């Protein structure tokens, strides 16, 4: 059962991808995901993986090449971050409209400008509505596991959608952790060879990427939305199967010490692990607080969220992104809308913080929680707040 070793998480992600035996890899370097394709190219060079590694000239071409490869029936992988993802933006929705199960590792990084190579979630949030399934990993183990799960989910006949696995830049990509690596036989057993529904071959010609008149566009879009919504069933199935195979449990909304909690904090990505330490400290003082960790961002897990916040009076939502001139952070806005029709919904506070790689310590979480705990109920509260901005 697996092999336990320490490794930089980006390299571990590459090892996990290699275990999935992709046929084509196309990627263009951008910090902080770079070590993933670099290490994959090493693996290919060593002959450990039989794949075509295409050193494309841009991210636009990286995703385009993956689309060509996937269209031809190959298992395709790419990785990027930040501006690289934006450079792919034109092709992102086309990949999902063509139902090509491409897998992408997204080493999350803030968007320029000012130029910043460090982490936040503004890259993925800018591509939120392009029809890709989005998973968020909180630590190295989850990165490995989700990378492998991603291929299985994307390629399921009931799904056939591209998928990105989000891992925070530096906080995860460049950190060394001890992780369990599944064995090749175990992955082979879990993940069969990709069987495309249709592929570009003269023995069975097909046309992909046709022009759609107004009579068809809405129907095509609705079909894609249905595929996206229905994919949750497959995701849950794959996660159950993962637990049976590898013993580790995944849930769309993972809860930590939520029993009897009146206050809950909701996080995504690597800050979840830091947040757990803050929750432990407060629980030790007798504060009824728990943590909800969102692992599945698209399709959004409405039912699971509603269930998870039952009994919670106050919900603190953390965003590492801002929707300029809008509702605050995209995660909080999503959660507010998800809970709007609930008869007993928690009071929601939204903090935007940790932008552009700003460190987030355990004390910061405690401060933010305390602010909510001891808030003067009579003063109307802002619907979102930037935390930790100097000069305020």
């Amino acid at each position, binding site marked *: 059962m697996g092999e336990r070793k320490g490794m930089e998480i980006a390299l571990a992600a590459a090892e996990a991808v290699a275990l999935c035996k992709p046929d084509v890899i196309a990627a263009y370097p951008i910090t902080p995901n770079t070590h993933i394709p670099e290490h994959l190219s090493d693996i290919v060079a060593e002959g450990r993986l*039989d794949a075509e590694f295409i050193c494309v000239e*841009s991210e636009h*071409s990286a995703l385009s090449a993956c689309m*060509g490869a*996937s269209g031809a029936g190959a298992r395709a992988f790419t990785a990027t971050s930040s501006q690289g993802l934006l450079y792919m933006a034109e092709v992102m929705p086309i990949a999902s409209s063509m139902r090509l199960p491409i897998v992408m590792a997204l080493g999350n990084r803030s968007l320029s400008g000012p130029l910043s190579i460090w982490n936040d979630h503004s890259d993925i949030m800018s591509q939120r509505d392009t029809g890709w399934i989005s998973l968020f990993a909180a630590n190295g183990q989850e990165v490995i596991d989700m990378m492998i799960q991603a291929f299985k989910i994307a390629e399921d006949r009931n799904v056939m959608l591209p998928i990105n696995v989000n891992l925070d830049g530096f906080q995860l990509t460049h950190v060394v952790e001890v992780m369990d690596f599944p064995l090749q036989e175990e992955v082979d057993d879990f993940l069969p060879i990709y069987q495309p529904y249709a592929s570009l071959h*003269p023995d*069975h010609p097909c*046309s992909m*990427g046709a022009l759609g*008149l107004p009579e068809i566009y809405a129907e095509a879009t609705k079909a894609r939305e249905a595929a996206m919504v229905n994919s949750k069933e497959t995701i849950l199935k794959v996660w159950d199967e993962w637990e049976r195979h590898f013993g580790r449990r995944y849930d769309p909304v993972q809860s930590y010490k939520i029993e009897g909690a009146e206050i809950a904090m909701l996080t995504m990505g690597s800050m979840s692990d830091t947040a757990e330490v803050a929750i432990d400290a407060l629980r030790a003082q007798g504060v009824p607080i728990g943590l909800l960790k969102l692992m599945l961002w698209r399709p959004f897990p409405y039912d699971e969220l509603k269930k998870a916040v039952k009994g919670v009076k106050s919900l603190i939502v953390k965003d590492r992104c801002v929707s300029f001139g809008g509702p605050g952070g995209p995660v909080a806005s999503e959660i507010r809308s998800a809970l709007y029709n609930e008869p007993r919904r928690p009071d929601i506070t939204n903090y935007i913080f940790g932008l552009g790689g700003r460190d987030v310590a355990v004390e910061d979480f405690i401060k933010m929680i305390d602010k909510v705990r001891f808030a003067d109920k009579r003063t109307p509260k802002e619907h979102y707040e930037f935390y930790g901005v100097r000069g305020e």
Partner: protein
Amino acid sequence: MGNFDLYAPKLVDREEYFSPGHRACQGCGEALAVRLMCKALGKDTVIINATGCMEVVSSLYPTTAWKLPWIHVAFPNAAAVGSGVEAGLKALRRKGRIPDRDVKAVAMGGDGGTLDIGIQALSGAMERGHDLLYVCFDNEAYMNTGIQRSSATPFGASTTTAPPGAVSMGNKTWKKNLPEIMVAHNIPYVATACNSYPLDFINKVQKAKAIKGPSYIHCLSVCPTGWRSPSETCIKMGRLAVETGVFPLYEVENGKYNMTVSMPETLRPIEDYIKHQGRFRHLSPEQIRIFQDRTNLEYKKLLDKIEHSRSWDEISAE
């Protein structure tokens, strides 16, 4: 080989891979050229199509004019998608997951999708050496969005973004020489072609198909709609482009330039070509002279290359 041209009509595939029923304008040189290209390529081909007229007229869901496997992704990336198709087929073939036989990836785009927005992806694909044929169907403007200028638009032409006016003569720039840029990529085969010379084009496509590696064909494709010329003059217009030296037909095989269609001893004046086209109607005699001079110069430069270039094999054999 001299007889090949004589017999070639018998050898052309009867099969229509780009079928009638597409929605191109009457007398569209591009649609004709695509049809010829497909015949020359035959069954074992995957077509990767950039956004543009040919994609729009051929793939209106739920219909398709394509009997070959065909994919369209976006405007700038046919060459990149083609790289992926080629790599995908290669990997699957190697792993025994598809039949072990050659299937050629052929990317195509208009002049806009090739010379302008798609040049980065094209350059990348050629430089990486994929077994990929790229064919540019050059109708000298962005026709699909309504005749805007591209970097392939000739000097003086009127377009919707380079219109002639009180202080404007229409398009002020010279056609970008993409075949030459492709030659500079050191790829084994580059050629120009035209819809009005079917056998020449078919020969070139077949040659390019046989090459294991990247190749590029630049096909002038008459667009009656954008050129403001009568539909029935499509073939004639292409011939005049060649006979005036505006668009000579040549190929560059391993670095060696050859003219593939015999040229008149003295070129016809470009007026013979441009007078039939509404897009040049506004040009003054002085502007026509500038156009003529430049055409002569470019033609001489080409003749010079034909006379003096040697193939890489010849050079390295010394």
